[in-house]
Structure formats: structure tokens, C-alpha cells
């Protein structure tokens, strides 16, 4: 949207005002995330810039909150729990979600819309309702306050994301390819792993990433279904903010921002790979 040479002064003024407005909104979006990074190196246990920090005095900065995070047992437990729960939940939701997406994208599938609506519901229902429902029922069948309970709950929350991304990938999928493989003598299992899977892999991986981040970032269900034994990073942060506010939380937050940058990069690379495979050139 370059400014034409014949633009009137008013248009010119608006053009630049508009860009300034957008810049302000971008700062609003990204600024808060970057403010916490310097704060996490605070020498003092406050959530604010000290005069020493502002004068760039090295004494005002310290990495002790990171040390605390890496040495304190409860944080290390939280990292471990978060990873275990997220990995297993992702596995379950990816396998079940991919299978279901394969079924739902077949033209012979009956009641497609109804099934889709049911299976998407974990994404729609407000988390607090899902969490309280699971809280009562999981206690009833004896899996509340266990890792298994939290994993199953997170798997249920993650499946819609896998379902949506894989279904989207399958929309551009040439359904004659598995048939070709079959006529060439491949059995269904071979067809799936050698023909279908490589083509839908970007969708499966990005769905899995969504499921992973859903579990890794989830706190409401863990608060209700889990107990201290299952405390995850978000749980520690939530109770940390409520009880004693320490810059360790900011250190963890900074590390999590790095994790999300990593995730974002992976997704972007996947998207580019998908475009390359489909022969779409980025203009």
C-alpha cells in the first residue's frame, strides 16, 4: 500500500498517522512480553525497575532468579511434570485425532457435521466447566490427583486442535493417491505409512504442537483435577502470583517466551515446507 505521488496532504497525513496507530498497537501486543525479560534479571525481589537497573549499573542485575529456578526442587518437579503430562497427552490426542480426521474426511462418512461438532466441543466449552466436570467425575472413578487423570484430561482438550489441522491438510489431499498405491499392490498399512502419512505430516505435526502447547500452558484443569503431586509450571506460576510474588516467576516467564519463539519458528518452517510441497511459491 505505497502512497501514490498524487496523494493530497490530508491523505499523506492520514497515511503516517495510520502507521503510527498501528505501531502503537504492535507495541501494545509485544511490549508487555519484552518488559518482563529485563525485569527477570532484577537484583532485588521486585517486579519493577530499580534505580540501579535504570542507570545500567551491573550491581542492579543478577541471574539469581534463574539459579533459583534451576536449583529449587519444586520448580524442577514442575518442569518434569509439565513435560511428562504434555508429551503423553500430545501422543494420545495426536493418534486419536489423526485417525478421526482420516475417517471424517472420507466422503462416505455419515453424520459428518454432528460428529465434528461433538469432537470439537472440548475447544468450545469454557475451561472452568470442563475442569469442574472432570473434577467430580475423575474423583468418582479414582483418577483425580494422578498423572493419568491430568494426562487424559489434557488429551481430551488437545484433540480438537489435531482434528482441525489434520482435516485442513486432508482438504487438499488427493484421495486417488491411496487408491493408486492399492492398485500397485500396497496393503492398507503400507499405503498409510508410505503414501498418506508423508503427505499429511505437516498437519499432524502442527496439530501435535497445538496439543502440546495446550497441555503445557493449561492451568485450570490441573488446578481442579491434579494435586501437589501433579503441579506443573503454569500451576506454580498461578499459585506464585496468588501467594508470594517473586521474580523467579519472571525468570520462568522469560524462559517460556524463548520456548514459544522456538515453537513459532518450527510452525513457520512447517508451513513453508507445506507450501513448497504443494508447489505454492511465496510471492
Amino acid at each position, binding site marked *: *500500500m505505497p502512497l501514490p505521488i498524487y496523494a493530497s496532504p490530508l*491523505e499523506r497525513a*492520514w497515511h503516517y498517522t495510520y502507521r503510527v496507530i*498501528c505501531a502503537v*498497537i504492535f507495541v*501494545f*501486543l*509485544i511490549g*508487555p*512480553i519484552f*518488559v*518482563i525479560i529485563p525485569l527477570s534479571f532484577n537484583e532485588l525481589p*521486585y*517486579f*519493577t525497575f530499580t534505580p540501579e537497573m535504570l542507570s545500567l549499573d551491573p550491581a542492579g542485575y543478577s541471574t539469581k532468579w534463574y539459579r533459583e529456578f534451576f536449583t529449587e526442587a519444586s520448580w524442577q518437579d514442575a518442569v518434569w511434570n509439565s513435560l511428562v503430562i504434555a508429551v503423553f497427552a500430545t501422543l494420545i490426542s495426536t493418534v486419536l485425532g489423526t*485417525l*478421526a480426521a482420516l*475417517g471424517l474426511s*472420507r466422503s*462416505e462418512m455419515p453424520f459428518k*457435521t454432528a*460428529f465434528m461438532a*461433538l*469432537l*470439537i*466441543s*472440548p475447544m*468450545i466449552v*469454557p*475451561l*472452568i*466447566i*470442563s475442569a*469442574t*466436570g*472432570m*473434577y467430580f*467425575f*475423575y474423583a468418582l472413578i479414582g483418577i483425580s490427583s494422578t498423572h493419568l487423570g491430568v494426562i487424559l484430561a489434557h*488429551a*481430551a482438550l488437545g*484433540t480438537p486442535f489435531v*482434528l482441525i489441522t489434520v*482435516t485442513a491438510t486432508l482438504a487438499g489431499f488427493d484421495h486417488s493417491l491411496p487408491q493408486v498405491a492399492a492398485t500397485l499392490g500396497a496393503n492398507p498399512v503400507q499405503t498409510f505409512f508410505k503414501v498418506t502419512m508423508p503427505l499429511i505430516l505437516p498437519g499432524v505435526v*502442527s496439530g501435535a504442537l*497445538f496439543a502440546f502447547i495446550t497441555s503445557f*500452558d493449561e*492451568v485450570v484443569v490441573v488446578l481442579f483435577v491434579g494435586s501437589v503431586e501433579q503441579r506443573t509450571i*503454569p500451576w506454580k*506460576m*498461578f499459585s506464585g*502470583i*496468588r501467594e508470594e510474588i517473586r521474580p523467579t516467576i*519472571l525468570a520462568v*516467564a522469560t524462559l*517460556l*517466551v524463548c520456548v*514459544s519463539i522456538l515453537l*513459532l519458528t518450527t*510452525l513457520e518452517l512447517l508451513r513453508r515446507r507445506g507450501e513448497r510441497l504443494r508447489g505454492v511459491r511465496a510471492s
Partner: protein
Amino acid sequence: MPTPTDDVMRTADGTPLKISLQRALVRSRLRALLLVLPLLAFVLVFFLFPIGHMLFRSVDNRIVGSVLPRTAVAIQDWDPDRAKLPDEAVFEALVRDIQAAFKDRTLGRVGRRLNYEKPGMSSLFRKSGRGAARITGAPYRDRMIAIDKRWGDSSTWRLIHRESGALTSAYFLAAADLKLSERGAIVRQPEPRRIYLTLFYRTLWMSGLITVLCLLLGYPVSYLLATLPLRISNLLMILVLLPFWTSLLVRTTAWIALLQTEGVLNDIMVFAGLLSEDGRLQMIHNKFGTVVAMVHILLPFMILPLYSVMKTIPPSLMRAARSLGATPFTAFVRVYMPNTVAGVGAGCIMVFILSIGYYITPALVGGRTGTFISNFIALHVGETLNWGLAAALGALLLGLVLALYLIYDRIVGVDNMKLG
């Protein structure tokens, strides 16, 4: 096998082609179903059934019947409009039930349940539990009234009579700030107990405000992203996607660091001389904090659908409007904006749905005045243990969300939902 003599087309083994094709279709349908089945079963057992089970608590009223089984049966014969008090047999049943429940320590549950309807019932049952343990024989009615004269009050009995059925509407009424009067008419709660309508109203208008703010901030940014060359817009998109992918708690923490009275924004304003040291603004633990933090968190959900719709609008439309004499403003309002209605609808409903069910951010930065329905559901589940009321509030919230979701489905279609 008899040789076919008719003109029906057959497969190699002699079955008519039509039937054979039908069978093949059924088989492939079953195969498709079989692929969906594991997930369906999983979601049903670990997600949908638990929610249904929880929501049933909003009408479930088996406490009185299970703790006071004899009384619940005996009282059915009592007609509150004819006799002031139930007869001796009901009192005897009550004494036996209270004695049994006192021993099993379940009496408190019934007291708590009835206390929701009528304050003081909890203490009445506590007192009666101790007293009834000493009653050994008739006259039961006089002895119970001697323990507490409220047993001689017909309103106590009307309440037990009403709540001895298996289902109740009391929780839903309570969620709408209503209750049943002694005579069974629906009346409003007394003034200090009217909190839920205000709460629903607050949740709705704050979600509405958040949605409007997201639209106001998201529209110009999406337009910029959609009209810039792809090379630049992809880079700027990172500024939208990074917050989207960043942990919710990280973003909430960031806003606490920025907004608190000793926080960054207050520091800057004091430093710039806009505020005095004592005049620091209270920007968090109130409505303002909740709205700001939630707009930040939900803004990507507005920008992404808007962007994907704006991306499909050919730039030639605006040029055509300009060449026909429209001013840039007219061209934008009359030509461009109507084309983005689908994106606006999708984004707004998405943000609104997410917003009315939000729990974490209001719980952390909402303080007392910036909390939502979700926070009260959590309160009733975790602290006051009034699960029936929590379920009724949950059912109302869920109904609202599902209605909005149906509209969303009409506009966008679930199948077209895009992520990231």
C-alpha cells in the same frame, strides 16, 4: 448356483451389481466410522460425560431423600394447606432419620442443603441431631418442638416437603437471583443475596467491551497486514503470533508487572511528573486491569480471522471505487468494510465466547470487582461447596456459549476454522 436368466447386471460371483455396490458402500462407511470411533469414545467418556454428570447436579435433589428416607416418604401424605403440621407418624420418621443420620454424620449435609433455601436450617439440624439422640419414645412431636420450636413452624415443614423430591429447580432459581417462597411462588431473593444477575450482566458487558476494544485495535492492524507486501507482513505477523503462542500466565504476569501500583507504568508516570508519589493509580485488581489484560490476550483471536478474510479481498475493488469518484474514506466504508463483515463476525464471536468463559486472568488481576461467572463457579466448587449452584451457573454459561457457537458455525463453519 442357478444360471441367471434376467437382465440384471451381476458381479463375477453372481450377486447383482446393485447389491454388491451397496455392500461395498456399507463396508466403507463402517471403515470410516471405525476410524472416528476411538476418539468419539474417548471424548464421550473423559469429557462429555463428566460435564453432563456435573450439570446434572444443578437439578439433582437426592440429599433430603437419601439422608432422611423415612421422613421423605411419610411427608408425602401431608397436605400443607389443610393441616398446619404433619402428624405424629412423620415426626416419628423424622426422629428415627435424624438419629440414624446423626450416627452416620450425614446430618450436616441435609442441614447445609436446606440452609441454601432458608438460613438457619443448618443450625436447626445440628441442634436437633444432639437433642434427638436422647428421644426414646412418644410423643415425638412435642419432644421435637421442645428441642427447637422451629419444628412447630409450618414453614420448616413446607421446605422439607418441597425439597424431598428427586429433582429441584432451586439452584437454577438461585442462579437467577430467584427463590421459591414458602407457598411455592417464585419470588426475588432478598436484596443482599441478589448477586448473580449483576454478575451475569457484568460478565456480558465486560466481554462486550473487550470484544469491541479487540475489534477497534485489531481492524487497523489486520488491514495493514493484509495490504502490505507479503515479505513485510510476514515479519509483522510474528508480532501477532508471538503473543498468541506465549503462555497465558506469562502474559498475565507481564500485565501485573506493568500495571501494579509499584509497577512499570506507574513508575514512568511518576518519573514524568504526571503523577505524584502518593497519587499512584490503582490499575490492577479491578475492572480496568481485567479488561486491559484480556484485550491483550484475546487480540490475536480477532486479528487472525480478520486478516484471513481481508487477504481475499482484491485490491482492485478499492481502486475501482476510487476511479468511480469515491473519496478514500467513502471507498473504504462503502466498498471495503462490507466485504469484511464475515471476518468481523467470526472474530467478534470468537473473542466474546472465549471472554465470557475466562477464568485465570480475572482470578489473578480482577480483584473483587473484575471477576466473571467462571470465578464464582470455581468459588462454589472449591470453597462454599454449593455444587448444585455451581452446576446451575455452569449450565447457564454453557447454554450461552453454545448459542453463540451455533451462530459462529453459521457464519464461519467449524470446518473452516483456522488455527495460527
